[in-house]
Structure formats: C-alpha cells, structure tokens
C-alpha cells in the first residue's frame, strides 16, 4: 500500500486548483456535518445529562410556569421516590449580556442526592451547604471567567429582581468547583432559599422537581402517582423522564434545530454529489494513463484499488480537516450558548460516523471511474492520448 503513496500523492498535485477546490468543498461539507451532529444532539436533549433513575415533575403547561414549593414535600412522600429536589431557572448573566450562564437555584441539601454524578471536595461541599449565598460552578466557566473558590461574583438575573433594592444584582460566593461525570461543566448551582427570600416577584414557588426513584422500571407508575396527586388542582403537573424533560427544554428553541439540521443535510448531500462528480471527472481524464498502467501489468483490481485509494485520500484529508474544524467550532459555540446547552460540543461518535462517510464518499466518487476502468480495453484506452 505504502509504495503507491508517492503515485497517489502526485496525482493530487496534477491540477492543484481543482484539488484545492475539491478539498475545500469536502472540508466545508464535513464541517457542516460536524456542526449538524452537534446541533442535533443539543436539540434532541443532550442525553448524556439524563439519569435513567430520574424523573422531572413540572407544570403541566410548560416548565416556564412555576409550581408551589409545597409540592416538593408531597412528591417526596410518593411511594417509590427515594429523594426529590427542587430547581428554578435563574437566567444568569455575568458582567455582560453575552455572558449567559445556565444558573439554577436548587434545594442544596438534596441536590447531591439526586445528582450523585456531581462531585465536590468535602470542605467545598460543606462550605456550600452552610452559606446560603454560596454557589458551585462548573470547571469550564470557572476557567473562562478566571473564577476561583472564595471569589464573590456579581451575578445578574434577566428574570428576577431583588425586593430590597429593586435591582437585579445577586452577589454569590464561589464555594466550590464541581466535577460532573455527565459532561455538564458550564453550569452553576446556588441555594433556592437565597433566591426565594430575596426576590421581589413571587415567593414559595419553584421551577420543577427532580425525583430520584428506587426502581427505574417503575418510573411510569411513579410518574402517574405524582401527577395524580395534583390532578384537578389549579396547578396540575406533568412528570416525565429526565431525558424527555431536557428535550422539552431544548424545544423551547422551536424547530430551529430541525430546520438547521435539514438545511445542513441538504447542503452536505449536494456537496457530496459535486465532489463525487469532480473527482470522477479527474479520474476520467486519465483513461489513457490507466491504459498504460494496465499495459505495464497492473490488473483491473489493482487499478480499481488505486482509484479508490486516491478518492479516499482526498475525502479523508478533507473530511478529517472538516471534522477537526467542526470540533473546534462546536467548542466555541458551546461556550456562547452554554446557558441553553451546557454540554454542547461535537459528540465523539461524530468521528466514527465521519470516517464511515469519508469511506462512502470516496467509494461513491470512485465507483463510476472504477466501473469505466474495469470495462476499459487497453487498446481503446491507449488511443485516448
């Protein structure tokens, strides 16, 4: 295989402009593919975040509607529920509006029981639980904003105002930087009590309840039992799995994700066709050379191998560059939209799917020239000088 590399490489330099443009279109196609995958995963609910033993109870209409705080204790009493913890959306902003942060007001003592994947040093955890203005933050935002434990940060909320001064500044003291095995490293969690006691608008209302169940196999029954508790009340609930909840949360973005995915898929497919055609044309122009190689003793299978290898060299080069750029771009975009998609980034599986697509694209580009080459009689090929 390696002995053919100089020949394959030399063929790429045959028409440099065309090769560059072909490579560029493959790079763009795979960049789009990587971003499309990133968006698809983000829009369909970051399943990495979801625990199989967790349910979410929220307002039947939308998670934007609040629930009475009293619901929390009633949910805790449902058979099969191990622990329940409340959360509320804070709408966090740090310093500038573009620095949107996924900040949640949580029932601190139970938070670590429902989310065992969040780890803190014991002294940080103790500091967090003891101070109601304390906050724990993800390592990525801590690094991004150069925060360290002990800092007091002037968070703002684009939802809640304070009852004491009517302002929206909520100073919080960083008690710890958590490590989460589920990929969420850009969020922040602080005490619900701090929010509830200081906000001007409403009191004793929570956003939703996170429920940990003993037996995930009974999740449907437990969800029904919870919702039955509040049926026919003024605030009915809807309990679903955490994955469904996260998806619903992301769907607040409407169908933009689907639309983007569709557009990117269409562009990707079109580029595949254009690239396949260009590469096919490049090989068709070398019919005479294929005839010469066959004359020298290269078999039909050998020539087919070389054509496919050349096509895959181009698609591989372009594809890997494109995916690499997509991974970098996803990181950048992830930081910008961390409030809505705390784990936004190119899913690792994209590399695997990308490699399959690279091979498919290479195969597709080479298929027609290979078929032509295998049918080609040497004497006919030699006439095409």
């Amino acid at each position, binding site marked *: 295989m390696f002995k053919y590399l*100089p*020949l394959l490489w030399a063929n790429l330099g045959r028409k440099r402009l065309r090769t560059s443009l072909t490579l560029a279109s493959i790079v763009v196609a795979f960049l789009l593919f990587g971003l499309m995958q990133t968006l698809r995963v983000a829009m369909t609910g970051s399943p990495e975040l979801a625990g199989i033993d967790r349910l979410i109870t929220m307002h039947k209409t939308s998670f934007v509607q609040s629930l009475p705080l009293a619901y929390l204790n009633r949910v805790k009493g449902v058979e099969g529920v191990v622990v329940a913890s409340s959360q509320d959306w804070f709408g966090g902003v740090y310093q500038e509006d573009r620095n949107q942060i996924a900040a949640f007001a949580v029932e601190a003592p139970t938070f670590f029981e429902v989310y065992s994947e969040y780890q803190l040093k014991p002294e940080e955890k103790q500091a967090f639980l003891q101070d109601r203005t304390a906050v724990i933050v993800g390592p990525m935002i801590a690094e991004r904003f150069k925060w360290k434990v002990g800092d007091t940060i002037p968070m703002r909320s684009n939802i809640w105002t304070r009852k004491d001064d009517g302002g929206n500044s909520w100073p919080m003291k960083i008690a710890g930087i958590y490590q989460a095995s589920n990929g969420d490293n850009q969020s922040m969690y602080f005490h619900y009590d701090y929010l509830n006691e200081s906000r001007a608008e409403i009191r004793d209302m929570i956003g939703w309840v996170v429920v940990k169940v003993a037996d995930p196999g009974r999740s449907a029954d437990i969800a029904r039992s919870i919702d039955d508790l509040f049926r026919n009340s003024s605030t009915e609930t809807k309990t679903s799995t955490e994955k469904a909840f996260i998806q619903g949360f992301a769907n607040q973005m409407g169908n933009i994700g689907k639309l983007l995915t569709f557009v990117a898929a269409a562009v990707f497919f079109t580029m595949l066709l254009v690239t396949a055609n260009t590469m096919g044309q490049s090989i068709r122009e070398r019919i005479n050379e294929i005839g010469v190689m*066959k*004359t020298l003793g290269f078999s039909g*299978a050998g020539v087919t191998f070389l054509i496919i290898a050349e096509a895959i060299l181009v698609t591989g080069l372009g594809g890997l560059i494109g995916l690499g750029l997509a991974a970098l771009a996803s990181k950048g975009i992830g930081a910008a939209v961390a409030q809505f998609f705390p784990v936004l980034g190119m899913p690792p599986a994209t590399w695997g799917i990308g490699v399959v697509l690279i091979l498919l694209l290479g195969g597709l580009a080479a298929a027609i020239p290979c078929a032509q080459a295998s049918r080609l009689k040497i004497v006919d090929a030699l006439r095409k000088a």
Partner: protein
Amino acid sequence: MADESLVRLRGVAKDYKRGAETVHVLHALDLDIPRGDFLALMGPSGSGKSTLLNLIGGIDRPTAGSIEIAGTRTDSMTDGDLGKWRAHHVGFVFQMYNLLPVLTAERNVELPLLLTKLPAAERRKRANAALGLVGLSERAHHKPRELSGGQEQRVGIARAIVSDPTLLLCDEPTGDLDRKSGDEILDLLQALNQQQGKTIIMVTHDPHAAARAKHVLHLNKGQLSRDAAA
C-alpha cells in the same frame, strides 16, 4: 528456425465490429520471430501493424489462431494471468511515450517494479540503472514536461527494460521525434538488441528506421508479404 522461435503465431486473425460491419484486420497470419531478432514491421496505415503488435504483447486478443511466446500460449490466458505475464516478459515503447506526467523520470521507470515485491531501495536502484543505460541519469528527478521528446522516449525505453523483459515491443518509437532524436532512439534500440540480446519488434512507417532492424516484415491489408518474412 521454428525451434528457436521466441514468438510463434499460427493462423492468427483479428476482426473488429464497426456497427453492423465486420472489419477483417488480420487474416490467418503465421509468423515466427527468433530470439534476439530486431524486426521492423512496416506497412501503410490501417494495415494491421499495431494490431499485430498488440496481439503479440497480449494487450489484445486474436479472433482466431494461437500465439505462443517463449513456449507459453498467451491467447488462452485469463486477463489477470496475461497482466502478470506482460509485467514479466514484455516491455512496451509507445509513439507518444505515455509517461505519467505527474511522476519524475525515476518514478516513471520505477512504475513496473511496483508490481514486484522488491524493496523500495532496490526498486530505486534498478530504475536508476535503467536510466543510466539510456543516458539519462542526470534527468532522474525531472518530470516529463521538463524533458525533450527524445529524452521522454528514452525514459519510456528505460521503463520498458527496467523489469528485464524477454521482448521489447515498440510502436512507432521515432514517429514523434525529429531525425536526430529519432536516430538516438534507434541507436539505443540497436544497442539493446546487440549488447543486451533483447528481442525487439518495432512498428514503423519510416524506411530509415526500418533499415536499422535485422529483418523487415511488410504487412498489407492484414497479410504478411511472403518474401519479406523472417
């Protein structure tokens, strides 16, 4: 002479279909070419010279008859076997050189050796030896567009001899060259025949080129002239 024949054709015919019409290019040819011969094949355009050369070289198949090269029937080989056979036994020299434009002279000459199991260093060594034999060592790293027509043809000859084939088939090797370059190529072919013992069959229109051969065969309307046959 038949016992010493390197190339033996018996009743070889070749027909082509052109639409509904069948064109009879070669008619039941019998031909024996001894090992070490330098044979010039002459004839007007369309007489079947190149077709005959292609049949001997195994890049085309006869409609009828048998072709035996060094005791091996090539007309009944599979395409795969024929390819391997060509790689070992036949060197081709084309009128238009047919070098790969993206490769240097050295890489072009090395091309047939890629089909062998020789290590890279040995392939390179043999390619350079072949280039040395045609007097182009100093042009090894030049691409075809950087060479004159005569030099390109010498690279073509180096490529044809690099795997030390039994038979060298040249299709109008001087047809695209000026007289001086053509003479140099003919000198080279003669040297390969006389010093290396290569058996050469050369198709040519040019009586001046044919004069360099040991024997001349005339082909007209698909039939060999009896009195000129070797």
